């Protein structure tokens, strides 16, 4: 195996991890501030991807498509929050799971009804297509590199938002004591809507960005949602930093496991058996990582007490 291939796979893992972070950040924020488990977060990812594909198809502009994805996901998020989610904050987790499961059914089938069952395609913008040569002679897709850059920029922006702005102060205060900040005159239900819409917009952005490198179809959100859950379990609920570290760990484990495990088994097995054992184990590797973290730290790497 060449070092170049390894470097390329590390970058792929990083890119995958950063996109998972965009999903996990919204989930963990919503859980941290409102105490809500939202299964429909994957649907917002899908909404973003479909909005981007539809707008890019109509206008041909990728920037407009991204704006549409952000707007559509944030609007869908705000709407759902006001109509449904708001009634669930005081409920037990079982009710939240079921109501948001119902929302997945509604979102998925409505999208199928609007756009049909066939996948849509979202093209990589002209300016970002093709490879670039990185130091060391590594050829790598410029688009994927841009995804890493955008993701890191969003992570940094989110960090500034939470640690430096008034909204961030309110979010942090909401995490520790919601009655108190309501008593201090903050409109708590407006704050919740904003936080939910913010999480939704991040999911929609991820959907649109990832939509250009895979097909845009109904049900694309749920596998990502479940991986985002794994990320949160590893990183610790409510911690943005944990989400970032967990996402990158999961991204790298998934990508490198698929590459290295078959090679590893190839050392002492024949080729066909090594490939099948290796790929079966690779598909389980991130869950094994999660299990190890659970045994060592049940509340996640950066979590408060579970």
């Amino acid at each position, binding site marked *: 195996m060449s070092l170049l291939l390894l470097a390329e796979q590390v970058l792929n893992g990083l890119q995958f991890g950063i996109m998972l972070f965009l999903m996990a950040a919204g989930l963990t924020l919503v*859980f941290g501030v409102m105490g809500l488990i939202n299964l429909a977060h994957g649907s917002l990812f899908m909404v973003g991807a479909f909005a981007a594909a539809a707008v890019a198809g109509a206008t041909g502009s990728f920037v407009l498509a991204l704006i549409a994805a952000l707007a559509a996901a944030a609007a869908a998020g705000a709407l759902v929050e006001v109509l449904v989610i708001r009634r669930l904050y005081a409920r037990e987790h079982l009710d939240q799971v*079921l*109501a948001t499961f119902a929302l997945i059914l*509604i979102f998925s089938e409505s999208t199928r009804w609007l756009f049909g069952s066939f996948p849509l395609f979202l093209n990589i913008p002209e300016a970002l297509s093709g490879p670039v040569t990185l130091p060391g002679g590594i050829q790598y897709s410029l688009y994927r590199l841009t995804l890493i850059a955008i993701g890191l920029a969003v992570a940094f922006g989110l960090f500034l938002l939470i640690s430096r702005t008034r909204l961030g102060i309110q979010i942090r205060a909401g995490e520790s004591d919601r009655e108190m900040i309501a008593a201090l005159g903050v409109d708590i239900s407006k704050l919740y809507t904003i936080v939910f819409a913010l999480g939704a917009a991040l999911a929609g952005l991820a959907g649109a960005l990832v939509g250009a490198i895979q097909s845009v179809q109904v049900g694309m959100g749920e596998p990502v949602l479940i991986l985002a*859950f794994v990320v949160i379990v590893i990183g610790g*609920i409510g911690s943005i930093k944990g989400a970032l570290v967990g996402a990158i760990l999961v991204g790298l484990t998934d990508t490198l496991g698929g590459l290295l495990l078959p090679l590893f088994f190839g050392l002492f097995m024949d080729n066909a058996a090594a490939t*099948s054992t290796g790929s079966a184990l690779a598909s389980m590797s991130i869950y094994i990582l999660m299990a190890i973290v659970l045994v060592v730290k049940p509340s996640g790497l950066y979590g408060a007490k*579970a």
Partner: protein
Amino acid sequence: MSRETLINTALALALLGVPLWAYAVDEPFIITLATKVAILALAGVGLNIALGLGGLVSLGHAAFFGIGGYAMGILASHAQTYTAITDWPVLIEGTKSMPVIWLVAVVASGIAALLIGALSLRTSGVYFIMITLAFGQMLYYFAISWAAYGGEDGLSVYVRNGFPGLNTLDPIQFFAITFVLLLAALLFSARLAKSPFGLALNAARQSPQRVETIGLSPYRLRLLAFVISGMITGLAGALFADLNRFVSPTMFSWQTSGEIMVFIILGGTARLFGPVAGAALFIILEHILGGLSEFWHIYLGLLLLLVVLFAKGGVIGTLAGREQAHD
């Protein structure tokens, strides 16, 4: 007889009566639908032990449903081709006998539930939901990449497995098997809830600290409940595979976990017959709405949303009123 007992009896009689009527008028498809209700209700009865009695919101019970299904698929496909599953260290051959398949399905899903439960129960609340979901998904991907047993395409079995003394190819006889198993599981579940174990488990759900103070370990109680729950759902999985004569990774998918939970909630959480009412309602809706519109899941979603937001007790709760303190 309380109102809930009355409703339960009526439900059991209806589930028995409808296929008997269908048998009389020669409508085998309706018998198959009733069989499906009985099997899915059985899966729900399994989950309800963890969810209703133990308060463990497991979103990964498809794992056990799928393991039960694959136990049937693997054993029956080897018996079909007369090949051994393994010849080392001991010779293990496939089988077409339902009781043997059930035993394997129950033991295998019990072991899986022990492993998954031992890890997941180290946490609680929302972590537990996410982790059980993740472990279910792990097995889903494993089944997809397991090329020896069909991978993504799944496994077909040409002839339904046999039960001594019965002709399982006859829909009404296969229904009878599933109905008896469902009743047995319901009886077991009712006895379990009133047993010392069930009472301690219920107490651990309401106040783990107090249970710990009197010297019981909530962790062990929950783990045992989770294992029993997984075993029953695994049995349902084996029956479901036999009904379709087909297993595929879909049985492991997170939607399956969600649907098993939906049966319970539509019927009424922690109600003995909740899963029966819920599974029946689900199949009836699938049949009626599915005929009206290709997008019937939208209506299912709306209904589920309404039940969760406004009618917390589900079907049985609405009909039978508030739950009695010790029932």
